[in-house]
């Protein structure tokens, strides 16, 4: 991912800031500027997520795209945040294998050692609570 594309969403990537639709009380992460349910009646505002959630499904990636190759094998999961949105992120394997249904919390980690432009990119990963 190029530097401008990464920095554009730096707040969201670093601090897990998404959005919510105040019309229907739905939280979005990744952020959306338009609520798919309310569309033109959307009332969108920024929303900070607690970073806590639960593993919905997972895999262990052995064959990754090149920027992630050095980290294989790694655990990738869909995590449902307590506020209701879902995110695809790595789960840091600390004390044993993470499983579906496990409680996890966000941690700020290096996501890519070297982006296409040689920068280190940080973002959200998860670890078991």
């Amino acid at each position, binding site marked *: *991912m190029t530097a401008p*594309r990464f920095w554009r*969403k730096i707040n969201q*990537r670093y601090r897990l800031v998404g959005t919510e639709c105040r019309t229907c009380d739905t939280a979005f992460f*990744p952020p959306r500027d338009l609520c798919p349910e309310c569309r033109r009646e959307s009332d969108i505002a920024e929303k900070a997520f607690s970073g806590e959630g639960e593993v*919905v*499904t*997972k*895999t*262990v*990636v*052995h*064959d*990754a*795209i*090149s920027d*992630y*190759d050095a*980290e294989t*094998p*790694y655990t*990738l*999961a*869909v995590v449902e945040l307590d506020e209701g949105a*879902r*995110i*695809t*992120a*790595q789960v840091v394997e600390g004390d044993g294998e993470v499983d*579906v249904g496990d409680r996890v919390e966000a941690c700020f980690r290096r*996501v890519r050692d070297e982006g296409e432009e040689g920068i280190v*990119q940080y*973002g959200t990963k998860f670890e078991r609570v």
Partner: protein
Amino acid sequence: MLRDVAVVGVGQTSFGEHWERSFRDLFVTAGVRALEDAGVAGDEIDALYGGNMSAGQFIQQEHVAALIADYAGLATERVPATRVEAADASGGLAFRQAVLDVASGASDVVVASGVEKMTDLGSAETTEALAGSADREWEVFGGGNVAALYAMMARAHMDRYGTTRRQLSEVVVKNHENATNNKYAQYTNEVSAELVESTPFVSEPLRAFDCSPASDGAAAVIVVPAEDAEDYTDEPVYVEATEQASGSLAVHDRDDITTLGSTARAAERAYETANVSPGDVDVAEVHDSYTVAEILAVEDLGFAEKGDGGAFVEDGRAAVDGETPVNPSGGLKACGHPLGATGVRQVVDAAKQLRGEAGTQVEDASVAVTHNVGGTGATAVVNVLSDRNGRNRRSR
């Protein structure tokens, strides 16, 4: 549809690693075969649609519909040529656009084609290009790629419905066996479930042999108004329905990740338009880009109950002599998967089944379904084709 439409000619290249053949060689070969099959001359063609996912990344060539028209000898005729892109559903969409063009009355003779030249790139670059069908900013940045996303769908399906690793393997066993009679297939060797399970993990629980390969290839079909079809062929294949539906780009945004809502909706509309039920379908060519995708497909297309797709395949109900034969061509797994060509190749194989000239032939096939998916399911196309004989048979 305003006018009924028929397929009157089909053609394809063999799929595989064609290092000696270029992008343009491939589609010219497929296009000429389709035109010869239909007995259509170049100056009769009113429009061309070309499905292609990613020539920009694979061969750094954009504007490929113009290239196709040019090298197919249609630029001198000023034939309008349109590229259609929806990841690896590009071919299915190109076919649908061609059908709608004829159905609307705007055009009479239209070429639907699909082509992809993948093997000039190495496997790392190919994985990278494929990842463009997922959400680059939020799935791929997090460490995902298409195989990993399907792996997570597989895991969820196993957890919820008890689908087994062996059932995934049986998809490969069946599709490879079917392809042994397909001279255009990339793999024509039989494989055992044990062999599948001995290949390395790509993304757990998916292994190397759960994945369709990178391939070069092209396919083309000619569509005309149904009322003119017999001017071109004794065996027209009628397009009873062509439907398309969308789903969220990212897998994580789906309420239920054990189903492709796009497939289910496109299928529901297609069956309604064609006035058939899933039980009427004699043969289906479905999008098995990964083994789990075929299990999802047989459920979402209504051949099996939700959650029963693994058993459906394992029990032989998807076999060529089963309840609903699925992928008698060998599917994406064994035929190969040149992304933009696949959706058109499926129509080629379905047409051959209805004409009774397929390699692995389903007996008395008269209603066929083709099912083409973009990426992890944000786009799905479902077509219903028939020879219009079965219907008469059933009504007697």
